[in-house]
Each structure stands twice: as C-alpha cells, then as structure tokens.
C-alpha cells in the first residue's frame, strides 16, 4: 500500500484506525460514571494528542535517526505558531495557508539554526540549540513585542481584517477550512456514552497521518539509512565519500518543519500563541515524549506524546477526595495509608511519575515503551511456540 511493505502498511493502518476512531477509543466510560474522568475523548485534548504526536515524530527523525539531541526544538514550534497566526490575521482565516506558511517559515529558521549549530556535535550541539531557542524565546518575550505580542502573545481580534473572508459583522474571526469552522463538532449519544467528533481534530488527525506516512518513507529510504549511518559512524561516512553534515542538516530542517506544522496546527485549533510555547521546558517535553515512547522507532513518538499528554490532562486532575472514594472499600486506617502512598505520584504530582518513568526508560529500556511492548510480546510468543526459531528477533526494533 502506497509503496510500503506489508508490515509498514499494517502499522499505518493501525495509526489510521486509532486516529479515526479516537473519539470512541478515548471515551470508553459512560457519562457520569466514576470512571468518566478517565475519558480523554474531548476535542481539546484529542487535538493535543495528535499535534504533539506530529511534533514528536519530527523530533524523532532528528534524534532517533542521527542521534543529535536538540534541546531547542520548541523554538520551531513557536515560530510556526507565530507565522500561522499572522497568516490568519493578515491573509485568510482558512487554516491551510496558515499551516503551509508555518511549515515553510519554521523550516527556514531551522536551516539557519541547524547550519550554525551543526558546526559542533555532542553536548556542544545540544547547548547551541538550547542557546538559540532561549534567545528566540527571550526575543519573542521582549524585543519583538510588535511582532509577537510579547508576554501576552497574539490572538485573533475583531480588529483583524484578513484579505480574504474576514468576518462580515466585525466579530472575532474563527479559524476555518473553506468555511467550516474548526470548532464544529458533532455529538453522538449512545446510551450513556457521549462521543464528540470535532472537525479541528480530524484535520489535525489527517496531518498526523501524512506526517507519520512521510516518517515511514524516510525510515525506509536510502536517506534514512544515511541518517542512521550518521549516528553510527561519521568517520566511516566521510571516508566513504559522503557528507554527514549535510545529511544531518537535512534531518534537522525536516524535523524543524514538523515542529512548524505542529505549531501551525495549534494556532489553527485555538487561534492564539504565547512565547511560553518556546521556553526550553517545552523543548524538554518533546525530548521526554520521544524517548519515553521509543526514540528511533516509528510508533514510539506518537505513543510517548499520547502518554505524556494523557498524564498531563487526566492523571493530573485526580485529587485526594477521588482517591478516598476509590479506596473507600478498604478499612479506614488502611485506606489512609494507601491514599498517602499513592497521592504523591498522581494529581499534581504527575510530573514526579513522569520523571521516574523517564529515568527508568533511559536506564533500562533504551528503545522506550515500544521496546518494552516488543519484549513482552516476545515473551508471550516464546511461551506459545517454545522452540521454533524466532526470526523476527533479528530485525531491528521498528
């Protein structure tokens, strides 16, 4: 299918299914039930899942393949956002041009930053990207206020008059796709279940599918092999007549464009942007997502983005009362002990859980959750067919 092997097609189909059916999959619990707070199928969060999925998939093309650890990727996401919102303010509220502009502008910045940063490698590269990103953040925050709106950022206002298709009545314009607004949702009620199908989410979802498909193609291309060669042995590459720098720079620009796409989509969804999007903690977040899920694997970044965003939005909302409710069946003293033990790790303490999880993955599971899943799957397979040669074990993790 689309020039993919059977295995990759299967992967692509799984992601397609997940994206399309997300409103069902993420809302497994009936409305009003005790478990309803674990439902993640509301548009705002679903949009974040796919947008950060795109961001992480792009980051993985750089870090997962070439091994160059950028600590400033959020800058490109922010730049994409600023570019998209200006396109909406000035040209049209249609999201497509905005998104295209964000990809191009972020790619251009990535070219410059990458060209300079890639003159060094290792820790120096990480620090250089970090320095560039912090510089851009500081500039967006202060000096460039006329362009970036400074601390408050930019929103679409009723004074904005885009060239094409501005709101007729002087109201606040809304992001749309050829007239259909991003906020449009269709709600489906099945018994106690409520499912929301949001246009914005599906547009972002289509972009994720495209981004994921491109990522598979790059992984399987000669170019992808070259990027992995950069990580493996640059000396040999040089003496094989190749220029590792230019390959790495290409990967840097591509991943910058992915970040720009994610930034553009964010603006398409909520029509606002602030400089905090570029702060270095945001760059750290995409690093964590990618590695947690599995750097260098195809599914890993998407998975990692999902896990982190789920924790940030769902696990973080669990408070002590809810815990007491859950463990109410236990004897009183015991209940308190359990709640006291669990509480530091959830609710507001979700960062702690994330940090520990992240460390565990770095220490024990360099292939991330994907490798963990593969190991478990292998265990099961071995139990079933105890002595047959396991041919798949030799293929690298994908």
């Amino acid at each position, binding site marked *: 299918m689309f020039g993919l092997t059977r295995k990759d097609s299967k992967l692509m189909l799984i992601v397609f299914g997940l994206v399309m059916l997300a409103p069902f999959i993420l809302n497994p619990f009936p409305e009003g039930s005790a478990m309803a707070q674990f439902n993640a199928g509301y548009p705002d969060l679903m949009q974040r899942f796919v947008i950060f999925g795109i961001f992480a998939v792009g980051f993985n093309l750089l870090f997962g393949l070439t091994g160059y650890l950028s600590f400033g990727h959020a800058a490109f996401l922010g730049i994409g956002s600023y570019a998209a919102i200006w396109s909406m303010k000035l040209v049209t509220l249609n999201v497509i041009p905005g998104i295209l502009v964000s990809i191009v502008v972020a790619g251009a910045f990535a070219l410059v930053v990458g060209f300079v940063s890639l*003159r*060094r490698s*290792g820790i120096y590269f990480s*620090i250089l990207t970090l320095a560039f990103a*912090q510089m851009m953040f500081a500039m967006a925050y202060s000096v460039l206020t006329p362009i970036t709106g400074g601390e408050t950022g930019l929103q679409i206002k009723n004074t904005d008059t885009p060239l094409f298709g501005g709101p007729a009545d002087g109201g606040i314009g809304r992001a749309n796709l050829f007239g259909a607004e991003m906020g449009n949702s269709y709600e489906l009620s099945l018994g106690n279940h409520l499912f929301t199908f949001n246009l914005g989410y599906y547009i972002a979802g289509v972009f994720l599918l495209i981004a994921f498909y491109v990522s598979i193609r790059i992984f399987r291309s000669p170019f992808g092999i070259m990027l992995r060669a950069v990580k493996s042995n640059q000396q040999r590459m040089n003496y094989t007549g190749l220029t590792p720098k230019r390959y790495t720079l290409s990967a840097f620009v591509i991943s910058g464009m992915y970040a720009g796409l994610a930034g553009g989509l964010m603006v398409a969804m909520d029509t606002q942007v602030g400089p905090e999007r570029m702060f270095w903690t945001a760059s750290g977040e995409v690093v964590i997502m990618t590695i947690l899920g599995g750097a260098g694997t195809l599914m890993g970044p998407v998975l990692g983005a999902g896990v982190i965003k789920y924790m940030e939005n769902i696990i973080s909302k669990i408070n002590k009362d809810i815990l007491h409710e859950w463990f109410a069946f236990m004897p009183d003293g015991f209940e308190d002990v359990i709640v006291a033990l669990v509480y530091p790790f959830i609710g507001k303490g979700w960062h702690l859980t*994330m940090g520990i999880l992240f460390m565990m993955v770095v220490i024990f599971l360099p292939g991330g959750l994907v490798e963990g899943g593969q190991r478990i799957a292998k265990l099961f397979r071995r139990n079933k067919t105890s002595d047959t040669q396991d041919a798949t074990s030799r293929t690298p993790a994908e």
Partner: protein
Amino acid sequence: MDQIIVQVLNGLDKGSAYALIALGLTIIFGTLGVVNFAHGALFMMGAFCAVITSKILSVSHQVVDPTRSDFLGNPMQVDTFYVQDWFGMAAGQTIMDWAVPIAILFAIPVMIFVGFAMERGLIKHFYKRPHADQILVTFGLALVIGEIIKYFFGANPIQTPAPPAFTGSLDFGMILGYEAQTIMYPYWRLVYFFFSAFIIAGVFAFLQFTTFGMVVRAGMADRETVGLLGIDIDKRFTFMFGLAAAVAGVAGVMYAPIVAPNYFMGMDFLVLSFVVVVVGGMGSLPGAVAAGFLLGVLESFASMPAVIDLLPGINQIIIYLVAIIILLTRPRGLMGRKGVMEE
C-alpha cells in the same frame, strides 16, 4: 564610572553562583567524563538545606507562662523555641538568625552523601554510554529531585533571610570617594562573593597542593595511565563527585537569602551554568570560573538602562549570544583543552 562599578558589583554575586556551579560541573565532567544535567538540582538542594535548617532551628513548643494571662484570665500559652530553652534567650535568637551560615555545616555532609549516592547509584552505570544518555538520565533525575522538593515544600518560593548583621548595604561609593548613596551594595552579596572566592580558592588549592588532588588532576588528563599505575582512580573520582555536589550545595545555601529558594531554581541556573561551562571550555577549571564571572558581569552590564535603550532586550539574550559567538569562533571555549568532547 560609578554606574560601571555598580554593574560590575551586581554581576559579581550572580557570576559567583555561575562560577561555583560551573566549577562543580567541570570537576564532574573532567574527572568522570559525565555531563551532569542534575547539577542545578544539587544547587537547589543546597538552598533547601538552608530552608530546612532554618525550620529546624525554629521548632517551638508551647509553654505556660505564669506571669502572663490571656483575656480569660488563664495563664497564657507561649510559643517557645527549643534553641532558646537550651542556649538562653539571646544566644538562641542569634542562632536562629544565623540559620543560613549554620546550614553550611549541615549541607556539607548531606550534599557529599547525596553526591556519593548519585555517583554510585546511578551515574556509575553511564560512564560507557553516549553523552546523550548521560544528559537524558541526569535531566530525568533533575526533574525527579525538583518534584520531590515541590512535594515537601510546595511550589512557592520560601523566604530565607540572611543574618540581621548582613541585611544592610555597604555604601561602596563612599569608600571610593563618590557621594553617599551612589554605589550601594548589599552586605550579603559581598559576603557571597568572598565566600565563593574562598571556596574556589580552596578547591584549586586542594587540587594543586595535595597528593590526592594531583592524582585526580593526572587522572583528568589521562585516566588510563593513572589506572595503570595501580592507583584506584575510581574511588577518588567518586569522592570528587561528592566534592562537586558539596560545592554546588554550599553555593545554594548561601544563595538562599539572595533569591528565595523554589523547586525550579535549579533548572534556571543549570541552563546558564552549562552555557558558562561551554564558554569557559569543557573540562577547564579556570575557564569555568573565569567564564562564570565574565558572563555574570556581562549580563549585569547588559541590564544597564543606557544599554537597554540602545539594544532593547539585550539583557535577556546576552549570555546566549556570547555563547554562540564563542562556540563558533573558539570551538574549545575560552580555555578548553584540545581533544575534549571532540571526535
């Protein structure tokens, strides 16, 4: 001229903090070859040692004071501090006031222990792994330490005052013959600067003049050879990690009165300290110290109103800008050695 002196002075205390953290980072990198992203967290833990000490010293209990009565006519319950019980009113009060300096005594063993535990428990397993993995695992550790601190102390900064003897400002201008009140410099910042200078001198003297330090320096230059001489360099390096942690820790303790400790301060300082290390030259101790002070002072100069009018926002980006320029023109930093972190 007086403006320039003010800026230099302002830069010194921040520069001292950068220099101390960068010094520790460089010791760890130079001896163990590990890039420690958790070093800012050690600094932050030091600052919280000050907070803890001040809390412990002001633990109180209620005593019935027969000489006073509350509005119902019953004897009044009065909060009494244990230290005042033990050492008398005046001495107890002094001890509480001096919580921050006293915290150093508490912080040194604690931080050395933390350093040992970190090196033996975690970092040891990452010597042979790529630098990216070292960055990632210590970055994760920094997050975890920050969250633990947040769990116990909350997210808000905790004011930790300096001893009252140092709360005022020194009129520096008077000494130099300017009019009164032109150059004011808080005493505590002055203390911080001299304290840092003392610590830095101590570390250098230790490395320069003790046999232990000589072996460590030799190990930094060529680990294998020293290992071949039959010296257990690993143990010494573990000790150096503890030392680096203690340096970061006391830097944090003394900084607590300048910036109220919060769980995020480690990360803020870390990012800048890394820039400092890279500018100074990875693996160069004098480079780290020089770059720390240099960037601290530069940052302070960039914050002068005259400079900001000329180049708005320059104070926010100056350090990064300098770092980028230096890295591109002098790849090894100001005083970096050849062959460190190069392929």
